[in-house]
């Protein structure tokens, strides 16, 4: 399990994270929300060791993260970055790269690796795109290809930074359902999301960041009635109950409509 204890981080000489304490619990979907520039992506990058921390401690299975080699870390945590390259390779090849942390030397893919990759493609909903070059795909399809690569890593913790960018509503909901399935398998799933209704629908807990500080960490039910959302986003979150459970939407404050 990945855990942050009073972690601080700086970006370009400016404090980007301030004393963040957070546990990414197995079997839980934790959604991180916050305004632009609030430190959501920096939090994920710092948790993974991609961005150096300036204070605090990051523990992986109770041990300091620094004690793990990059390969050991990659077997335990997978990460979907916000900005991704568009390499000159096929989807299949990209997803195969998810097996890199598990491979020995010489680096040959086993039948088991291929099986895991096929499953990852299936779960991401893109088995038919396997032979297609990444460059020929739409933004949403590329997103799914990278997601499949992350799934092929078969890690205990998944950090997904804005995984719904480029996805239409149907695919956003599919991704939310997949996150819930992964959590039900015992994985810790961490999503950075901008869509508040989706965040409230999928999350077990929500972490709210502002100015690099964790200003709220609560179950959706508790955060729903908090005035803080209205203050930060300029919207009022509302909900109705139907046969599919609580459905969230928001109404826009008059001052935002100019």
């Amino acid at each position, binding site marked *: 399990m990945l855990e942050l204890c009073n972690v601080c981080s700086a970006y370009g000489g400016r404090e980007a994270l301030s004393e963040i304490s957070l546990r990414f619990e197995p079997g839980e979907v934790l959604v991180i929300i916050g305004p632009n520039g609030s430190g959501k992506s920096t939090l994920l*990058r710092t948790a*993974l060791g*991609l961005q150096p921390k300036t204070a605090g401690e990051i523990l992986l299975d109770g041990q300091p993260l620094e004690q793990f*080699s*990059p*390969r*050991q*870390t*990659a*077997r335990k*945590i*997978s*990460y979907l*970055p916000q*900005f*991704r*390259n*568009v*390499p*000159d*390779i*096929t989807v*299949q*090849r*990209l997803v195969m*790269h*998810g097996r*890199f*942390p598990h491979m020995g030397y010489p*680096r040959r*893919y086993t039948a088991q690796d*291929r*099986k895991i*990759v*096929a499953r990852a*493609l299936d779960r991401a909903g893109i*088995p038919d795109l*396997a*032979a297609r*070059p990444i*460059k020929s795909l739409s933004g949403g399809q590329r997103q799914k290809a*990278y997601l499949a690569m992350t799934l092929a*890593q078969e890690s205990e913790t998944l950090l997904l930074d804005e995984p719904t960018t480029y996805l239409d509503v149907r695919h956003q909901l599919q991704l939310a359902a997949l996150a819930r399935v992964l959590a039900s398998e015992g994985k810790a799933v961490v999503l950075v999301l901008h869509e508040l209704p989706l965040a409230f629908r999928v999350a077990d807990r929500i972490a709210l960041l502002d100015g690099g500080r964790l200003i709220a960490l609560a179950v959706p039910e508790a955060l729903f009635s908090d005035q803080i959302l209205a203050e930060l986003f300029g919207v009022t979150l509302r909900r109705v109950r139907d046969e599919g459970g609580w459905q969230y939407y928001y109404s826009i404050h008059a001052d935002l409509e100019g």
Partner: protein
Amino acid sequence: MKRSPGSCTGMTNHKRLFRTAAALGVCVLLSALLSICLGPVKLSPAQILLALFEGDRASTSARIIAHVRLPRTFASLLTGAALAVSGAMIQSVLENPLAAPNVIGVNTGAGLAVALCSALMPGAFAFLPVAAFLGALAGVLLVMLIGERTGASRLTLVLAGIAVSAVFSGAIDMILTLVPESLSAYSDFRIGGFAGVTMQKIRPAAVVIGAAFLLASSLAPQMELLALGQDTARSLGLRVKPVRILLLTAAAALAGAAVSVAGLVGFVGLIVPHAARKLSNGEGLWLLVFSALGGAAFVTVCDLIARTLFSPYELPVGIVLSFLGGPFFLWLILRRKGGRGDA
């Protein structure tokens, strides 16, 4: 029934890759054969076989083959392979398809070291590839550092490389002005060519190129991960910095060795990897193999054109490459600007 993406597609892909490698291998052999046959004195394949295996080493054709055609062909094959592989590696490591060895100061770094070495230790051929390697390494590491420290965009990185190249070029000119006898064929060196190349010059370079290619091949999977971007590569467990430095060292050794043989041959490392990337689907090892084979055949054919187009007059191969490479570079830039490519 659902098809398993790992099985059928993978097999077909590998068959296609092997076929492409075989086709490129045939191109290399054909270009080498033509390079040995054609020139001011035309030789038939039969004459070549006779000269090579009959043992009449005193005949005119045998001497032409042994002292002119074979060294020249070896030189063009080696230089082409080395520069193309070097370009493919630099482009992957810097995540920039415009970053060819001649564009970002790697070749001129090597050229500066060769000019310096020739001025200070005339005739020390065995040391030239080492000096060229050190110069090329200085060039590529300088560009990498500029990129890392400033967070420069891809295009800015290329512009920084061009600036580094200009400084090295100025230094080469200064050395050759102060010590004009240091490089006997100054303009040939600047343009790049194989006139007067000897096996004595090729041997040490061949050793360096062979070793660097082996190192590059062993790091091919890591090179492929680097092309996904630094964050993704690191999140997959790659130690990005050491791997980048190792790959750039191998790329510098390849470019340096090539420059020590042929001078500042340009654009091979830009044109060939671009095509090889398309043929290899970006798969690291195949990218290196296709670049090596494609580069060898391409430079050999270009050299053949250079020395037969206005026969009996001969052009340095660098001129032919500039005529092809310049417009290609322009096309790559315009394609980016037009937003039709991800490069």
